[in-house]
C-alpha cells in the first residue's frame, strides 16, 4: 500500500513537473507560430479582397484616394501604425457600412462617406475599424464564426468561391461581440486624440445616424451595439481626456469628396 502511494506520487509529480518544465520553453517563438498566423491572415485578406473586388464597384479617382489616404495616414502616423498595414478601399454602395477584413483591408461604402457631416465623423469610423484591425478582432471573429480549420483550408486552396463569399458576407454584416465593439470604440478615441482629431463628431455620428434612421440602410450601426449606449460611453471617455485638435482636411476637399461619392463617372479612374 505504502509503495503504491509512493508510485502514485512519483507518477503524478513526474507529470506535473514535466509539464511545468516544458511550459518554460518558448514554443510559440521557436515554431514561429505568430508568423504563421500573420501569413494566414495575409492570405485570407488577399483571398477575400479578390472576391470582394470582383463583386463591387470601387471608387479609385485621385481625389478620393488622396483624401482617404490623408485621413488614414494621419491616424496611422500619430499612433505608430505602419501605414502599409491599412489598405483602404472605397466602394460605391447605398448601404451605410464600413468593415475590416483580414490582412488590414478596410472597406468603406460611399453611402457612409456621404452620410458623414464632416471629416472628423469619417475619421471616427475609420479609427474604429483600424482599432478592430490593430486589436486582431477580425481574425478572432472569423475563427469564432467558421473555425481555424476552415480558414486554413481556404488559404491552401480548399475553399470554394461560395464559401469565401459567405465568410466575406459574415464579415460585412455580422457584429463583433459587445466587448470587442466597446474595446474598438475606446481604442478609436485613443487613436483620434493622439492624432489631434476631435473625437466628439464620432459620438455625434453614432447618435445622429442611429436616431430615427432605417436600420436596413445603416448596416454599420445595425451590426453594432445600441448607438445611444455607445454614444454615452464614448462621450464619457472623451470627457476624461485633454486634447488639442487640428483640421483633418480642407473644407473644399471634403465637399469634393462627398460630391465624388454621388458622381458615377469618378469610378475606376486610375
Amino acid at each position: 500500500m505504502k509503495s503504491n502511494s509512493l508510485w502514485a506520487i512519483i507518477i503524478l509529480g513526474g507529470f506535473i513537473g514535466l509539464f511545468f518544465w516544458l511550459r518554460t520553453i518558448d514554443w510559440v517563438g521557436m515554431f514561429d507560430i505568430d508568423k504563421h498566423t500573420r501569413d494566414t491572415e495575409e492570405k485570407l485578406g488577399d483571398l477575400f479582397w479578390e472576391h470582394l473586388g470582383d463583386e463591387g464597384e470601387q471608387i479609385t479617382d485621385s481625389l478620393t484616394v488622396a483624401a482617404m489616404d490623408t485621413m488614414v495616414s494621419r491616424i496611422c502616423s500619430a499612433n505608430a501604425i505602419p501605414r502599409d498595414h491599412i489598405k483602404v478601399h472605397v466602394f460605391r454602395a447605398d448601404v451605410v457600412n464600413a468593415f475590416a477584413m483580414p490582412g488590414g483591408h478596410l472597406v468603406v461604402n460611399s453611402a457612409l462617406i456621404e452620410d458623414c457631416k464632416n471629416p472628423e465623423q469619417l475619421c471616427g469610423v475609420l479609427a474604429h475599424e483600424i482599432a478592430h484591425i490593430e486589436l486582431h478582432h477580425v481574425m478572432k471573429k472569423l475563427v469564432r464564426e467558421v473555425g481555424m480549420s476552415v480558414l486554413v483550408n481556404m488559404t491552401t486552396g480548399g475553399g470554394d468561391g461560395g464559401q469565401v463569399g459567405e465568410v466575406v458576407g459574415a464579415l460585412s454584416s455580422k457584429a463583433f461581440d459587445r466587448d470587442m465593439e466597446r474595446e474598438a470604440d475606446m481604442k478609436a478615441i485613443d487613436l483620434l486624440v493622439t492624432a489631434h482629431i476631435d473625437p466628439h463628431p464620432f459620438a455625434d455620428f453614432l447618435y445622429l445616424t442611429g436616431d430615427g434612421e432605417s436600420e436596413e440602410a445603416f448596416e454599420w450601426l445595425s451590426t453594432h451595439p445600441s448607438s445611444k449606449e455607445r454614444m454615452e460611453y464614448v462621450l464619457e471617455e472623451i470627457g476624461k481626456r485633454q486634447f488639442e485638435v487640428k483640421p483633418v482636411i480642407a473644407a473644399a476637399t471634403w465637399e469634393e469628396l462627398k460630391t465624388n461619392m454621388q458622381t458615377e463617372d469618378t469610378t475606376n479612374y486610375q
Partner: protein
Amino acid sequence: METLMNAPLDHEMEKASNSYLMSLLALLVGAPLPIINLIATLIFYLGNRRSTYFVRWHCTQALLSQLSVFFLNSYGFWWTVSILFTDVSISNDYIAYMITVGLFNLFEFISTLYTAIEVRKGVHVRWWVIGHLTDLICKPKA
C-alpha cells in the same frame, strides 16, 4: 510482477493478452478520439466479466490503465478542438501539455504492448498503482 498460484490455461492467457491488444488496436483506429480506446476496453471487460479470475483481473487492469490516460487525453482533445473551432490560440502551455501527454501516452503504449506479450506467456504483470486498484476491484470468486 508475479505469477498466479494457479497457472492460467492457454485460452485464458490469450483472452487476457487480448484485453491489452484491444486498447492498442483502438488507439490505431481512433487515435484522435480518446474515448474510443476506453469504450473498446470497456466492451472487452464487460464481455469477460464471467470469465476466470486471471482473465477478469487483466481486463480490469487494461480498463483502468485506459481510464487513467482518458482524462489527460480528453483535456488535450478538447483544448485542440477549441483552438481549431474557437478563438483560443496556440500557447506555450498548450504545446507543453500536448508534449507531456504525448510522452505519457508513449510510455503507456510501450507498457501495454509489453504487458500484452508477457501476459500471453502467462506472466502476471502488475502495473504500479493500477495493479493495486485492480486488486481492490477484482476479487477471486469464493
